[in-house]
């Protein structure tokens, strides 16, 4: 299923939440919508799902306005999600599948298979409220894909999951992609999008700031970065020749250097001043590109992301 947005706008209280946004999501890829909290990701997705009506612009499915069966062909995992606490796992899966147009008996077998795969097999006759939060999260994922949707929209899928389960979900998403599904993946955690997506659309304050395939983006913004893990004070690095930017992370520093500068020269200088544990020349991260393209103050952005991560 190919999904297109044409000049979508939505304004809340005179503030544009989504501002003339156009997207083209081709069939069979993992498409990432990334941006900080409040960038307009969820509003965009709600307009795709016809939950919120756009002020102007239109949504096209395979080149046409959405047909009545559109909602049945989509699996949507909202950021604000939940399940009926008093129903059993099987009841919830069957009920939500029925609402997607499946017959009651149709999904039973695959529901059991999915529950087994997610490690929830023994809970199938239990009530949802007996599950831990992570388990409910996995159950929610099953209900999103049980009706074999052609388009899967995942809004902040990984929030609240442990690394093991994130790995499990990632593998499933890649399988789904291989079987020809289109996946729209929205997140504010750029590292996740970087590891998973084929195509990226960055939005900020309701506007698209960058759009393209991951490899293309990396090539286009092909300036070099160096990641350094070390002991000692790295403050002097900002004044080194050829260093454009310094970003401090928890346990490493990332330097942006211009194309003429040889990373070796940097290493030669710093090795005398600090104890280097790791020195790596890396491609720019999506995060760096975002900061660069959106022309926003990195510290402000960093704080925003931190706030989002802890929220």
């Amino acid at each position, binding site marked *: 299923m190919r999904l297109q947005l044409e000049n979508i706008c939505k304004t809340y209280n005179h503030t544009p939440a989504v501002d003339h946004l156009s997207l083209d999501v081709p069939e069979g890829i993992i498409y990432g919508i990334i941006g900080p909290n409040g960038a307009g990701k969820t509003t965009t997705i*709600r307009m795709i*799902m016809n*939950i*919120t*009506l756009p002020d102007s612009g239109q949504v096209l499915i395979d080149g046409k306005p959405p047909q009545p069966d559109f*909602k*049945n062909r*989509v699996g*949507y*995992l*909202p950021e*604000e*999600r*939940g*399940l*009926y*606490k*008093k129903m059993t796992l099987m009841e919830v899966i069957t*009920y*939500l599948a*029925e*609402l*997607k*147009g499946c017959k009651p008996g149709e999904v039973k077998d695959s529901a059991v298979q999915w529950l087994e795969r997610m490690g929830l097999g023994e809970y199938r006759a239990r009530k949802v409220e007996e599950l831990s939060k992570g388990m409910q999260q996995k159950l*929610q994922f099953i*209900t999103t894909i049980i009706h074999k949707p052609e388009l899967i929209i995942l809004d902040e899928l990984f929030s609240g999951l442990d690394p093991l389960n994130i790995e499990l979900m990632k593998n499933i998403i890649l399988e789904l992609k291989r079987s020809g599904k289109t996946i729209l993946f929205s997140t504010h955690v750029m590292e996740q999008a970087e590891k998973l997506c084929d195509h990226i659309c960055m939005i900020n304050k309701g506007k698209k700031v960058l759009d393209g395939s991951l490899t293309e983006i990396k090539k286009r913004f092909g300036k070099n970065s160096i990641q350094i893990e070390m002991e000692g004070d790295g403050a002097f690095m900002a004044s080194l020749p050829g260093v454009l930017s310094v970003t401090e992370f928890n346990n490493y520093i990332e330097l942006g250097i211009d194309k003429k500068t040889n990373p070796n020269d940097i290493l030669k200088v710093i090795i005398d001043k600090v104890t280097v544990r790791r020195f790596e020349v890396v491609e720019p991260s999506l995060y760096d590109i975002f900061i660069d393209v959106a022309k926003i103050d990195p510290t402000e952005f960093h704080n925003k992301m931190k706030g989002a991560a802890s929220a």
Partner: protein
Amino acid sequence: MHKFWIILKREYVQVVKKKSFILGIVLTPALMIGFSVLPAMLAAKKSSKTEHLAVIDQSEYHIGTSFSNELAEYKLDNGMPYYQVDSIFNLPEQDTAQYQAIYDSLAQLINENVLKYFLVVKPDAPMSDTGIYLVTNSDNFRSLSRFENKLSNILSSIRLNESNVNLSVDSVLSLTRRVNLKTKDAKGDSIPFEIKYFSSIIFIGIIFGMVVGYGQLVMRSVIEEKNSRIIEVLISSVSPFQLMFGKIIGLAGANFTQMAVWVIIGAGLYSMKGSFNIDSSIDRIIFNPVIVIFFVLYMISGYLLYSTIFALVGSIVNTEKEAQGFVMPITMMMILPFILGIYVIQEPNSTTSVILSMIPLLTPTMMMMRVIFIAPTLTEYSLFSGIVGEALLGLLFVCLAVVVMVWITSKIFRIGILMYGKRPTLPEILKWIRY
């Protein structure tokens, strides 16, 4: 349409399979019967012990002795006398010291429950209306009315003897008996007021319970889905309108299931009505087609109106606690007829009553009350005038109100259910209507 049925089915099953639903079906009528029948039964309970009396008689007419003789006609079920006059003190008027002594000791006996009553007959008793009084700690109205009757007769005969009328006491009493004024309606029948009153309380009580009870279930169901955050998952599959109406109609189904069970229980009770000693004129209310038809119509339309309002409330609040602020005034609107009803049932055809019963939020209960009071008395019905015409007009207004409410609610609902956190202000809500 298909998805609407799936939602309807879930809402229905979720309510009907609850233990509280089954308990409510059985307990509510049991409580209703208990509350109405039990007090009447206790009040009607006969005494099984002889009640002891004494008399202080200061008159010269031996009123105490006559009184004692007259009371002998009342017997307990076991054949023993109902009243026993233990002692009669005939005292001259001047002997105040002894009067006081006897009075005090009798009062003492009353407090010790040895005596139930003692009667004080003043010297001027035959000529005064207040010359006799009864000292007692009990207010058994059956005994009091018996005493009053007997004493009236005794005094009448004394007065008769004193006067120059040459007639026997009995014939005077029979000549001066009071008229028994009964009411009949235009049809020439009469339904006792109590029957009309109690049946109207039961009919509108059921409408009230159903509308408020099930309306609130709609609200709770919306709040629960909002709270558990499943609501966005749901409206990614169905439209908010389908979701709202699936709920409203599904719960209406549960409502009708409950009604059906009650009709069966009611029919069972009705078949035993002989043993309840209920006036058979109740048939003219519960089998009156106008009453039955409007009862069903008002229950459905009233439920649709109120449950839509409750769905709206559910969509804009976050918790049931927050909702309570809205529920109170809505419930008050439904309770109003019980208060105003006291006026309406006395003047069901007055302009005020007609106007009150045409306000859509009040129509289901107030118009129902009027229908119950007026419809059985009519000899013929017209669809365009009289109570049937008014009831139909009222129904039309309710239906219009439902359409308007559904339109407003469907606008607010689709936005409200996605708003978490701060409760929206009224201007914000009004803006949603215009989206």
